[in-house]
């Protein structure tokens, strides 16, 4: 199994495990919330909630 590192879930404050080779811009999902999180910086790995794809519902 690949190596992992940890980062803080910006929504719940809990620790999340990530593959050691994550890159900036990568989208991961929070195990607690399922929300998509974007890796915004490395060393330490910082996560932010990823902007959701706006679905256009024919407005």
């Amino acid at each position, binding site marked *: 199994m690949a190596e992992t590192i940890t980062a803080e879930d910006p929504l719940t404050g809990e620790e999340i495990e990530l593959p050691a080779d994550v890159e900036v811009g990568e989208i991961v999902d929070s195990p607690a919330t399922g929300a998509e999180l974007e890796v915004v910086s490395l060393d330490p790995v910082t996560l932010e909630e990823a902007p959701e794809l706006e679905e*256009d519902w*024919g407005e």
Partner: protein
Amino acid sequence: MTAGETYTAAVVGGSGFTGGELLRLLYQHPNFDVVQATSRSKERKTVGHVHPNLREMDLRFTSPEDLHSVDVLFAATPHGVSMQQIDEFRDAADTVVDLSADFRLNSEEQYDEWYDGHDCPEYLKKSEYALPEINRENLPGADLIASGGCNATATILGLKPLFDAGHLSGDEQIVVDVKVGSSEGGAGGGDASSHPERSGIVRPYAPTGHRHEAEIEQFLGVSVSFTVHAVDMVRGASATCHVFPDAPVSKGDLWKAYRGSYADEPFMRTVAGGGGVYRYPEPKAVAGTNYGEVGFELDPGNRRVVVFSAIDNMMKGSAGQAVHAANVALGVEETAGLEFTGLHPVGAP
């Protein structure tokens, strides 16, 4: 039967959902003659190839690059297309009726706030909102008409009588809980709109922050708490507005308000607690039609008034509203081409 001249019409985006509705309405409209329907992806195909209900129509899609010169051009394209092509549209036609959000709001600032800005803000002051129930007096002679948003239309129609009658002032908390069908999304659509995933749902698709709030605010002067759910139907938008007037209102007051606003409106029905199976507004009762149903109930436990409003999103909420407005703009019989009264019984249209 219906008075007036005949106008030539073009439908840009004729292969889409609301474009198809425009074609259906104009095809049987006594005052219109459809001479062009555009589609990039279905060029040269017959209209009936895409819209099976229009197999009898003798017309093929042509490219939107090559617009014919017509009296009225209806644009049923996605948000952003009309604002970029408005000059070509106006060159091709005396009157432009746009079904997108591109000319609904009055100011560039609103587009900056709710959308991603606007390419042609100079037209925003010139365009007229299509909904005759709130803007009839400004439509005659209008040459740029912006058909309303479907959810905004349902909400505005439901709440307007309470503002007209002074039961609401705009300072109140208003919760609007909307339920819509799958045709709101248009003919495109990803994973979430496939039949297996989209069937049988009550799915919060715009929990907060829906852009139609901007239109509602513009016309009612109130900022609403707006949430939209997708439910298992194809046609229909149903808005339930929960409002709390400052002063007590009675059922009699409510009836007076709704009849005051809509008694003379040819397409508005007030349905509020009579007998039978259909006691309140229901989208399936107006599916395929230009009718809007509104109704209400009083909460005995608190000062709440619940307002129900139901329309067909593609008709009163879009193509029907557009044709209605064009009728008024051109001075032909207001209800021309919009006489279909709907079906009963009907399943999940």
